[in-house]
Structures are given as C-alpha cells and as structure tokens.
C-alpha cells in the first residue's frame, strides 16, 4: 500500500504587498499547483527543484503543518491536516536550518525529552538511541551542550532526535545544507542505513545532486508547484542532457585544449573547464588530459540542479 498519496494537491498563499503609501494589493501565490504522486513504504525519494518551487510547502502539508487549499492527501492512511498531532508520532521531520535540539542543554537531554513527548517505550528508546549513537558517531557528544556542537554534529543530533520514535516516514528539508563534505557523507551513510535496515520511507529535498545520487532510487523534480520529472536519476540526466564539468589546472596557460569526448567551455589562465555528458565516466577524459598536457590539479563538478532543469525545459521546448 502506498504510504504517501497525493491527488491534485494545491496550496495557494495570499500575499499582501504594499504597492503605494496607503494601497495594498492582494496577490495569490500558487506554491503547490496540482501535485499527484504516491510513495511506497520503504522508498527513498529525492524531491528537488529550484528555489521557490514549492518543496517546503509540500513537506509542510505532508506533516500537517499546512492545510492544502485543494486536493486529497494521505500519509500512512490518515489526513495530516486533520490528524496532525496523531500523525506526529509516526513521522520524523528535520528542517535543515532549524534545529529542534535544546541549545543550552547536553544533547542527551533533547533525546530524553523526545522519549517523553513521543512516549517511547524504555527498551525501544535504549535500543534506538544506541543504534543512532553508533551510526552517527555521537558517543562523545551526548554530554556536550548543543551550543558547543559544530553544524555537522548538530545535524547528526537532529537526525537522531527525529528517529528515536521509529517514524514510518522521515521528511528531510535540505538536511545537508551548509555541511562540510565529511559531515555530508556521514549524514548520507546514516540515511541509507536507516532506509535499508528499518525500511523507513525517506523524502528528502536538497540542492546537492550527490545526495540524490548516493541515496535515492527515485527523483522527483518540481517546478512552479508541479511535478516536471518523476523517475530515476539516470533518466533525469538524459532528460536534461546534463553535463558534468572537469576543472583542470595545467602547468601553464595555453589556448583551449583538445580532448576527445569533452569540450572546453571556459579558459582562465592555466585553468580550463571541460564539459562532458553526465552519464559518461570522468576517468578516460582525465587520462586523456594527463597523457597530453602537464596536469597540476583537477576536480569534477556535478551539474547544478538548476542547470539540469533549465536544460530539461529547453528539450521540451525544442522537442
């Protein structure tokens, strides 16, 4: 049975903008504009799209914080808007930039409060806490006041706090935003583990395509409150003909280099940018560059989500 079901879900906001000294104008913003999709139990779905696409609004409706303006919505068989508090026991939510941890208290205390607020049975609490501490490497941090934790450590704490009560669904709104590479890796590793081990359904919004690549079997792209793509990540790259970028630092400045399978899109002194199809491996291109030119340094950049989507639209327009 589908765990999350949306049928033509809409949400409009009325914004009052000041247009003059005394005049105000009411404007309708359609944040979510006819969403229909289902998510099966145990799926891990990446929910992506440009800023203002309606991702957070969708998550807020799925948690019951916001009531849809129209359409039908079910999570675990209940209507979130009507059963918000009851549903809260079955879902876990992490907002990337807003911690739910208690600032001045040791991390352990926030977990202890969750135990009571969610009425987690003692044995279950101990087991879950033990597992989270192990997977998230929180052992030495439990007695540290939250305000002394780094952003990455805090995010790990937030993840643990959201999972202690065995939620069926975990919603994550930009969980990796602002994190360093190591912390991002930890968070991904943990989410994959939770999804695999427990069958927890995960819905994740992000701006980092690597999150999706490493975690999600399914991607949904939304724009202007509508689903514009729903499928695997490979399909997304194809749909968007997206390109990755190989940035090479050569020993000296030279004109655009010649490498088969890639084209130079930018030259800046000894540094050159080479674009190649996202589905191709970077290895042969790196080898080809290294064989022909003295190479000092290199890095591979994933396509930005905005670019992928922009190209998808271009495709649609042409085709």
């Amino acid at each position: 049975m589908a765990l999350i079901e949306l049928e033509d879900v809409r949400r409009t906001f009325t914004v009052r903008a000041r247009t003059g000294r005394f005049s105000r104008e009411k404007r309708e913003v359609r944040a979510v504009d006819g969403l229909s999709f289902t998510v099966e139990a145990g799926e891990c779905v990446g929910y992506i799209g440009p800023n203002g696409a309606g991702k957070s609004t969708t998550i807020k409706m799925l948690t019951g914080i916001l009531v849809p303006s129209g359409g039908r919505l079910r999570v675990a068989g209940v209507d979130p808007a009507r059963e918000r508090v009851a549903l809260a026991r079955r879902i876990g939510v992490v907002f990337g930039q807003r911690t739910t941890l208690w600032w001045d208290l040791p991390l352990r205390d926030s977990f202890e409060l969750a135990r009571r607020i969610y009425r987690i049975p003692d044995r279950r609490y101990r087991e879950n806490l033990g597992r989270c501490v192990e997977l998230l490497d929180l052992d030495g941090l439990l007695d540290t006041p939250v305000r002394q934790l780094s952003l990455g450590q805090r995010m790990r704490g937030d993840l643990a706090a959201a999972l202690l009560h065995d939620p069926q669904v975990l919603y994550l709104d930009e969980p990796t935003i602002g994190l360093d590479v190591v912390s991002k890796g930890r968070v991904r590793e943990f989410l994959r583990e939770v999804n695999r081990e427990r069958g927890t359904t995960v819905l994740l919004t992000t701006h980092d395509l690597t999150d999706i690549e490493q975690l999600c079997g399914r991607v949904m792209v939304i724009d202007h409150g509508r689903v514009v793509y729903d499928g695997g990540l490979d399909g997304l790259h194809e749909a968007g003909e997206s390109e990755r970028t190989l940035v090479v630092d050569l020993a000296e400045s030279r004109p655009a280099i010649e490498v088969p399978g890639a084209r130079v899109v930018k030259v800046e002194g000894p540094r050159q940018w080479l674009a190649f199809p996202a589905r191709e491996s970077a290895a042969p291109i790196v080898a080809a560059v290294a064989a022909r030119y003295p190479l000092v340094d290199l890095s591979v950049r994933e396509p930005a989500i905005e670019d992928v989507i922009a190209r998808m639209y271009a495709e649609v327009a042409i085709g």
Partner: protein
Amino acid sequence: MAEPLTGTLAEPLVEHLAEPLTEPLGARTRWAVRSWWLCAGMWMRSTMAYRASFALTLGASLVTHSLDFVVLVLMFRHTDQLGGWTLPELAFLYATATFALGIANLLVGSVDGLGARIVNGTLDTMLIRPAPALSQLCAERFSLRRLGRPIQALAVLVWSLATLDVTWTWDRVLLVPALLVCGCVIFGAIYVGGATVQFWWGEAKEIQNSVTYGGATLLHYPPTIFAKELVAGVVFGVPLAFVNWLPALHILGRPDPLGLPTAFQYASPLAAALCVAVAGLAWRAGLRAYRGTGS
C-alpha cells in the same frame, strides 16, 4: 491502515499506531499540561546552566517589584484614604492583582513570543511534535526567577490580611483563595487571547502587554477613583474587575460604585471559565488561520 515495519534492528514495536487518533477532551487537557511541564522542566534546567545569576536576578526582581508597593505606601504619608479606601485595603487590591499577574506571567507569559516564532519559522518546529504548540510556547524560557513578583505580592497580602479591619465570615474567607485562583486564570487567558492576535497581526505584542500590565496597575487602585465608564468596561469588556475589584467589594464590605447585583461579587469563577473558553477558541481560530484552513 499503516502496515507494520520490518527491520533487522529488533522486532517492530509500533504500538502507538494502535492509539486512538482523537482522544477525549479530558485526556487532551492532561496531555497539554504534562507537555507544558516537560518543556518547562527543560527550560528550567537551561537557565540553571547559568546558576550564578539566578539568585541575583530573583533578588533584583523582588526589590524592583517591591518598589511598586513602596510608592503606594508613600502616598499614604499625606492622606489616610484614597478614594475612601485605607492603606490595608489598597494593599489587598495591590497584592491580589500583582499575585494573579505574576503567576499567570510565570506559567503562560511567554506565549507572547508567538509573533517572533511565526516570523522566523520556528513555530513549525513546534507543530511537528505530538505536544500541543500552545503548551510548548507557554513553557518557553520558563524560569523560577519570575517568582519575584508573586512572592513579593504574597508578603504584602499577608500583611494586609493581618491588618484589615474585617469581620471574617466564612464566605469572605473562602473568597480570598477563590479570587487568587480565578485572577491567575483570567490573566492567563488574557495572555493567551492577546497573543493569538499575533497570528493575524505580528506587532500586537505591545497591545497585549498594555492590557496585562496596564490592567494590573489599574487593579491596584480602588474602583471608586475611576470613571464609571472605565469600571464598566473592566467588568463587561476585558473582565479584569473579576480578578479582585468585585470580590474585594464583598470581602471588604464596600458598596459597588456601579450598583451591580451582589451576584457579580461571587461570579469570578464564571468569568474565569468564560475567559478560558474565549481564549481557547481564539487560539484555535488563530492556529487554523496560520495553517490555512478557512479565512
């Protein structure tokens, strides 16, 4: 319905899925109070992290609040009566109003942080928890430091009760604790109802503060010195008169300047219940507006 989870971790223990989705009002109220208590406990521990300043701020608040009363005492150096009332009688008014405001402020005063939480989006983090947002909001920054005001009020009350020239019949004796409890409830309801306005109008905090603090100051003085229209407004509008004026008329054996039926002097519990109902409905309407149902 929801399917059970399977996992290698342990057998799935999702018994809360069997819980009824809607609980009766009594159970919900108990849960709301317990949630408040849990959160207040966390805040109390948070402030204890800065223990050194605790005694200091409590002491300071005791002193500053006492100054209010000192002003009252100084006034009586030039006169024996104010609006026909003696110093112990005024002390009674002062103490009851201050106590009620102080306890309400201690327990639910932080609800006025609602507007700020709406603006920075942290109200949402309260709404994702299975505890009532109102409980979490009221418990915010709970600290026993705020006991300064009610403690000082109790001291004044004891002095006033000891010096008042009153024949203590049983109904007068009973009215004193009843008035204290109802006063706390009425001020608490005003805090909550006032904060609710912030759902629609973010800058409403100042208005609410002027009703609570301004109202409490009004209640320090006998109703006889104010215009009848004002007194009527405080009976039938924002029902602050039920905090202490009306029951005090009976306890102190004073005539009612408005000439209302004596029933009003016993009606504080009714007024308190009404305030709670109105504040509760307002809160629900506000939360619905925020979440986007109706309006």
